[in-house]
């Protein structure tokens, strides 16, 4: 079974801090994704990556950056955390190509105070 592991289940940070969320997958998937999930808004794509060192902006990239130095690891960075970035963050991976199922981690619930 594919396993996508997110480094923290719960995280509390202060406004203005630089925050790192880590995601690791163990199935050699080419694609990796970062979403945030908010009540009533569903899953919204922040960034995705289809290869090492490659990244594409999703629908809501403002205030975020990403890093993919190794195939199995995809990091989400909040450059200067703000309270409106309090959310559930979900990482996913999939094989290359269309019609591939995405495999999700269990999420990091991030609170910015």
């Amino acid at each position, binding site marked *: 079974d594919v396993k*996508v592991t997110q480094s923290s289940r719960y995280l509390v940070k202060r406004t203005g801090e630089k925050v790192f969320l880590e995601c690791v997958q163990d199935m050699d998937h080419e*694609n990796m*994704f970062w*979403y945030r999930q908010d009540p*009533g*808004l*569903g*899953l919204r*794509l922040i960034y*995705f990556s*289809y290869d090492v060192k490659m990244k594409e902006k*999703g629908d809501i990239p403002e205030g975020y950056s990403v890093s993919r130095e190794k195939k199995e690891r995809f990091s989400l960075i909040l450059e200067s955390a703000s309270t409106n970035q309090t959310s559930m963050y*979900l990482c*996913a991976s*999939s*094989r*290359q*190509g*269309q*019609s*591939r*199922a*995405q*495999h*999700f*981690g*269990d*999420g990091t619930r991030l609170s910015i105070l």
Partner: protein
Amino acid sequence: SQKIEQNSEALNIQEGKTATLTCNYTNYSPAYLQWYRQDPGRGPVFLLLIRENEKEKRKERLKVTFDTTLKQSLFHITASQPADSATYLCALDPGYNQGGKLIFGQGTELSVKP
């Protein structure tokens, strides 16, 4: 504008009945559509995929239909059980060769009462 919409209200049904969830979309021409299940505090889990040239797909008690004319997918759970209670998400590819990217609906919460 492009939209994907699911029943916004929670669906409450009695055990043993068939649950039907709706996913409507506008201004997309997806080649395929996927359904996921999400339990509280967990990430979504893939259930089924249906392609644009398939009218219907089945997997055990699950059935998905895809009507590209109506721009709608229906997700059915037959003989529902309390363990089927969860949020169900539909997702479609946005077309134009975006290599695995999906657009998700906001999900429908299903509650099956014993």
